């Protein structure tokens, strides 16, 4: 009986071998994948096992950690002035995971990032408890405050984005209405209630939507800046003060409908400067139609349309359509029809003009630090594209300055500073039934020629009824306050 017995012994050995192989597969080959699986609760337990690092604005943390008493999570996230900073920080919740910077830089904040490996090992040897690193942002607290308070005073919904044109640094990123990430940072019933209250299905105002990056609005007349840039770049008109070939009324090609202007304004054969000053639909519609879809699209793309931006928080792609007929192109060129832009996108437009035609990639994380403040990674400014030649950019700057000096944007004037801007009111809804959006994009130029800030403000307007007045009336004052905050911070 010994021969089959030996075979049985081999069989038992094979059983053990199969288990060993499977175990090696699980605990060696697949280990990392299993250990970092997002549903694996250990990931969350580990995330809250140590105080998280902080998100820092102007040298001060806007986040914190407290010891929490609920369940297996040791620390809970807190936020200073949560609603104001929520579009920047996102949230980090024991029950509801995380978003935006809290999620993207989770590795740094928890201290588990590979880039912190050396530090972590050192701490382990010296017996120090693990600590998270910090995320230093590019934001400007004063500008953010001006932006958020401006939106809050207005009520309704809206967003503000401010950029530093020379680098692409995001200085303000506000969205209203907002939410307090502290309210659902824990794991208790009250956290769940707070979370449910904020969900869109229970709250039509959708406070958790980051309007500055994720909502696309029809940009309305602010898009005329892009159209003007396309006209100059394609050589359709050479200067701001050259008469354009613009009949009034101008009948859109292929239709019998004239493209109307708001009110009785001097648009017939107006110069580009006058057309922008009064926001002439007929002039810019015709420019779009004359240039054609392809050239308009190419210019819009140079400004960043049709692509998502990663700041590193993702922004939605803004839209300028392809395959439009001339009259659709005309409507799109005045920021209606299919055109849609995020507030970030329009801030990029203003910032490219202010930066003499060079568009910098927008970013909001300046530096990642280890727990002892050693830099781990630093973001270098990066050029995204050149939508305008320097000469054309200066022409457009002077046109936008006229808008603020004696056009629709006089509410944005700042004494001692040259301000350029463009108002906009976008119709939306079926047959324009919904409230229009009030827009204002602008930049400030210091006497030394530098441009410290470019802003885009959008407000879902409750009271607007006439083009451009609302953009200048509602949005421009907020832009002015944000620009002033940045300028004062520089002094």
């Amino acid at each position, binding site marked *: 009986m010994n021969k089959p*017995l030996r075979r*049985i*012994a081999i069989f038992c*050995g094979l059983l*053990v071998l199969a288990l*060993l192989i499977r175990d090696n597969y*699980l605990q060696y080959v697949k*280990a990392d994948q299993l250990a970092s699986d997002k549903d*694996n609760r250990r990931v969350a337990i580990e995330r809250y096992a140590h105080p998280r690092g902080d998100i820092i604005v102007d040298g001060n943390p806007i986040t914190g950690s407290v010891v929490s008493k609920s*369940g297996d999570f040791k620390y809970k996230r807190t936020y200073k002035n949560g609603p104001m900073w929520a579009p920047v920080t996102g949230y980090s919740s024991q029950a509801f995971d995380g978003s935006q910077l809290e999620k993207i830089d989770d590795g740094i904040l928890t201290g588990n990032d590979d880039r912190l490996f050396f530090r972590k090992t050192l701490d382990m040897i010296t017996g120090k408890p693990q600590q998270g690193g910090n995320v230093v942002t590019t934001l400007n607290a004063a500008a953010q405050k001006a932006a958020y308070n401006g939106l809050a005073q207005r009520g309704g919904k809206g967003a503000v984005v401010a950029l530093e044109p020379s680098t692409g640094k995001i200085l303000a990123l506000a969205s209203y209405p907002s939410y307090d990430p502290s309210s659902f940072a824990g794991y208790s019933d009250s956290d769940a209630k707070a979370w449910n209250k904020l969900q869109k299905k229970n709250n039509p105002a959708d406070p958790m939507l980051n309007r500055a990056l994720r909502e696309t609005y029809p940009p309305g007349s602010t898009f005329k800046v892009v159209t003007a840039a396309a006209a100059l770049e394609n050589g359709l008109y050479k200067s701001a003060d050259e008469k354009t070939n613009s009949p009034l009324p101008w009948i859109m090609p292929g239709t019998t409908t004239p493209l109307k202007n708001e009110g009785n304004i001097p648009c017939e054969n107006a110069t580009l400067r006058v057309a922008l000053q009064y926001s002439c639909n007929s002039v810019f519609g015709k420019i779009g139609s004359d240039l054609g879809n392809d050239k308009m699209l190419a210019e819009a793309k140079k400004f960043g349309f049709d692509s998502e931006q990663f700041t590193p928080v993702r922004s939605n792609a803004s839209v300028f359509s392809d395959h439009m007929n001339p009259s659709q192109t005309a409507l799109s060129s005045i920021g209606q029809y299919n055109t849609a832009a995020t507030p970030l996108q329009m801030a990029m437009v203003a910032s490219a003009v202010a930066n003499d035609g060079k568009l910098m990639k927008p970013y909001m994380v300046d530096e990642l630090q280890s727990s002892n403040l050693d830099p781990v990674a630093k973001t270098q400014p990066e050029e995204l594209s050149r939508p305008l030649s320097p000469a054309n950019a200066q022409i457009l700057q002077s046109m936008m300055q006229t808008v603020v000096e004696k056009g629709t944007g006089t509410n944005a004037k700042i004494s001692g500073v040259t301000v350029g801007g463009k108002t906009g009111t976008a119709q939306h809804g079926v047959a324009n039934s919904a409230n229009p959006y009030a827009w204002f994009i602008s930049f400030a130029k210091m006497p030394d020629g530098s441009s410290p800030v470019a802003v885009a403000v959008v407000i879902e307007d409750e009271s607007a009824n006439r083009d451009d007045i609302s953009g200048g009336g509602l949005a421009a004052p907020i832009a002015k306050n944000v620009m002033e905050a940045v300028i004062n911070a520089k002094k």
Partner: protein
Amino acid sequence: MSSTTNPPTHHTSTIGAIGAPSRRNTELALLVFAVAVPVFAYANVGLAISNHVPAGLLEYGLGLGLLAGVAHLAVRKFAPYADPLLLPLATLLNGLGLVVIWRLDQSKLLQSLRGFSPAAPRQLLYSAMGIALFAAVLIFLKDHRVLQRYTYISMFCALVLLILPLVPGLGANIYGAKIWIRIPGLGSLQPGEFAKIVLAVFFAGYLMVKRDALALASRRFMGLYLPRGRDLGPILVVWAISILILVFETDLGTSLLFFGMFVIMLYVATERTSWIVFGLLMSAAGAVGVASFEPHIQTRVQAWLNPMREYQLSRQITHDGILHSDQLQQSLWAFGSGGTLGTGWGQGHSDLIKFAANSDFVLATFGEELGLAGIMAILLIYGLIAERGLRTALAARDPFGKLLAVGLSGAFALQVFVVAGGVMGLIPLTGMTMPFLASGGSSVLANWALIAILIRISDTARRPAPTPATNPDAEMTQVVRPS
């Protein structure tokens, strides 16, 4: 207790009884390790969880040492030639099991579950009873061949044990499997664990008698030896019974175990490969047949194929009437999170597996806290126990002892494979427990009895042949004197 040699006073021409050395001192030295390792582990858990050495360390160490000492003395006295590895290996596993069960008792998550009571004190009690049973088997079972007499009584006992959980009022349906019986005042018992041993006795006794008939009286058909119907009968009966257990008690593991054990013993007894083929075919047919209409088993297979989906289903309210469980996915996460070296004693989160963390899924805790290195060591310990059992079978001189030893060690290896394979997602989960490691009285008792029987057989196998009669030529002639 050194090996026996011929007394020099005898002048013999026959070969002396040179048996294997008894190796009792080797066993004792290994036992010291088998006790020391869990004691250090116990201290380690306490330090990791609460930053101080657990208060009961001395008692625990003394207790485990005392149990191992008693077992060792029993072996030394009643089975002096037994294999020296079996007892230390079993002691090590039992000790590590106690540590992990105690460690899981400290989990706040498990403490918050309904019906929680610390399992470690109970397990310690059962371990003591297990050692007592171990000693009792060695004391009262002087020769394993005695069991041969109880072949048919064993069969009867095994069937009774298997059917007990189905008796109304006695059986308990726990999480979808009816394999427990409730004894008032004692708690629940899994008769299948004991049936495993009793059934091995029956198979060994039956096959020893029938092996020639099974091996020789057959027709050749397509290269295989087909047995006669009357010899095939019993295997069909056992197959049917194991399928019935599967159907009525929804216990995939036990039926697989019994059937596997029977096929192994049959193969060893008859030396005919055809039996293996038949066995595999029949078990496959049975498994497929039952799986086609038994939802409990279908769920298990589904859960095995896609544990993540099962995990997600368990988090929602489903209306399919099936109890979805996130255990397997949780177990896989525990293994993965442990990685190569593990998190260290007391620093894992295998309590996320919830109520089965200290029984069916106890291996996941080892996986997380001791890592790949620890699991490989534990699997090798199990492999070593099976290997020592099979060695015992090889060495055994009587066919009954051979068959019994191969049956018991084969069943042991199969059980380890089925459980470990289940919790590691290699095969569908069956709901059996890891011998010695898992919390559960019947399992500890039955496995200590199993080790005792293997030790008894190995003692007989390694015992030197009785000192032969001295050479008659050398003996003094008896002179009958007239009185």
